[in-house]
């Protein structure tokens, strides 16, 4: 294990785009080279060294741990495209954290802004605060979003989280979101994603779900009329093998998509 420590050293009047901060980009580089990696601030290209104090040593991707200190809540795109290693962020973080990542782990010890874990292909994203809108969602114009991996949000996720999520039974890819509570349109256009909510969700959960599993342990502010009650269950078996115990009312939907559907929504009884 090798740690690289970054500490932000300038006040940000505009967002900083930091897609170069990934274990993949740091692996095998010395500190001087890491400092030269590009960042974008307003319309100017700058370097990591311009905005961060850097220390530590790097190794190969899988063993690289990047620890970021200071307030990076206005720093976007950290962890973009990463395939392994770890990033620990000790504050809130800006938009697009961990987007397109396919392996490794990102931990945010604060709130995350919109688009956290967008287009996730694998790996783990853990947010120990609230997250913004579009958590684990597809980007504009994409018909498939999160395809694998796990996102855990302790607090609330914003609207349209897990938009266009797509699982694959043959490849055993089960994109999964765990969260404390959720805003409107959770799991919209779901194509096989798994969502488990510890608390309450707002309206339109499971909108236009083609198939998938959404488990709500709290309350739903308004259930879509296109969902129909199937029965009651004592536990929910998720496709990733997990079993959630408890009494739930089982609903099928979204019946806007199909008259008979494998889409399921479970709401605590």
């Amino acid at each position, binding site marked *: 294990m090798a740690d690289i420590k970054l500490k932000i050293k300038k006040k940000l009047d*505009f967002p900083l785009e930091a897609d170069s901060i990934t274990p993949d980009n740091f692996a095998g580089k010395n500190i001087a080279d890491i400092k030269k990696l590009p960042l974008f601030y307003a319309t100017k290209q700058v370097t990591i060294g311009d905005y961060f104090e850097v220390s530590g040593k790097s190794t190969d991707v899988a063993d690289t741990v990047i620890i970021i200190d200071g307030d990076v809540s206005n720093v976007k795109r950290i962890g973009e495209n990463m395939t392994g290693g770890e990033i620990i962020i000790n504050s809130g973080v800006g938009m697009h954290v961990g987007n397109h990542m396919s392996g490794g782990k990102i931990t945010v010890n604060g709130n995350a802004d919109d688009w956290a874990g967008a287009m996730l292909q694998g790996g783990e994203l853990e947010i120990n605060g609230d997250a913004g809108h579009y958590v684990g969602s597809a980007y*504009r114009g994409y018909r498939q979003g999160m395809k694998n991996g796990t996102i855990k949000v302790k607090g609330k996720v914003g609207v349209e989280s897990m938009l266009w999520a797509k699982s694959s039974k043959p490849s055993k890819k089960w994109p999964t979101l765990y969260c404390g509570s959720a805003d409107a349109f959770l799991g919209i*256009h779901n194509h096989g994603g798994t969502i488990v909510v510890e608390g309450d969700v707002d*309206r339109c959960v499971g909108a236009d779900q083609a198939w998938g599993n959404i488990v709500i342990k709290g309350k739903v502010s308004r259930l879509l009329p*296109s969902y129909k009650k199937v029965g009651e269950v004592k536990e929910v078996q998720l496709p990733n093998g997990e079993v959630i115990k408890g009494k739930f009312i089982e609903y099928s939907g*979204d*019946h806007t998509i199909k008259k008979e559907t494998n889409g399921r929504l479970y709401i605590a009884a």
Partner: protein
Amino acid sequence: MVEKVRTVKDVSCPFCGTLCDDLEIDVDIKKDIVVEVRNGCQIGTKKYFSSNPSDHRYMKPLIKENGEHKEVSWDEALDKAADILVNAQRPLLYGFSSTECEAQSKGVELAEMLNALLDNTASVCHGPSLLAIQDVGASLATLGEIKNRADTIIFWGSNPVHAHPRHLSRYSDFIRGYFRTDGRNDRNIIVIDPRNTHTAQIADKYIKVNPSEDYELIQAIRAVLRGSELDVKEVSGVSIDDIKELVEVLKSSNFGVVFFGMGFTQSLGKHRNVDTAIRLVAELNDYTKFLLIPMRGHYNVAGANQVFTWNTGYAYSIDFSRGYPRYNPGEFSSVDMLMRDEIDASLIVASDPGSNFPAASVKNLFKHPLISIEPHKTPTSAFADVILPAAIAGIECEGTAYRMDGVPLRLRKVKDPPGETLSDKEILEKLIEKVKEKMGE
């Protein structure tokens, strides 16, 4: 007989997205002012008359000095404007919906040079419709098709009597069409709205829906259309029986259309309201012909979307900060960026965010230098640091505009630009030259 008045016929009206192309304008030859407008609605007519010189029409460039607007030369005004833009770290170029396509194209050029944010009024209007179309496509039509064929017309979250006054008489309701030879009597007008609007009052059927609950209603309609028996008795204030009746009416139409407006795009759900409406229309095509058309507000916002898309690949909320165009409404949209105070200078062209943006975002807009390319005194231009007086497209200069259904029509010039005004296109061209100079190109 000396001609006192010049009549221009077949004039395209530069107000709303209906882009009526049958106006007749009489211009006093000596004074070069509009003296009569025929065929226009109240709003279009007013626009032509208010192009005449008045105390709220700008004739010369102005720069704010000690809290007052002072008349200056074009050179001085353009120089100051270019200074503001070149020295900004995050400039915004916004508006473009009330001008013609060539000017819009110049806006793209300028934004790219400055690595700026480029946005048009779709951002606060039908942007959600574009987002929905990008996700699920759309089955669209031209207004002529509607006039000639449509027997079932739904206005959802749209009030054309007020917002598109001649829409009903030219295309969607009263007019006789090739297959609708009995005009109004050949059509079934359905209005779905939280209020019993004036459009609802002249419709055949009015369905009252709870505000901000349109999405649930459309989901219910779609599920019933698929053959499902729903568990509930009422959705969004509409009874299940009314929903089933509506589904039968839609299925047995000859040729249906859904016209939709801000009731969808500005209520909670935003683009998802449009998304599900598009899917409903698509699914109705299993039974009959059904299409939808967004009721675009400005006469050339559709043109701005077209021009921006040809040039950058994206229709609005475009960021050039990294040297190439990127698109992400919510991140690069004007109001959101202003709410996060991420803009430090703005060029407002042919639009009035001072009036039309939420107050908190206007506050941040006003904190920084503002350049206004604008014919009239508005709550935006009144607080601008530089005012570049524009000729009005469709009245004082020609150009192309795109109607709500994507049909391009030519705008006419009925009189000369008054005072020292220049067309938006000329102003932007001159600004581009000044910016190039200052950037050392």
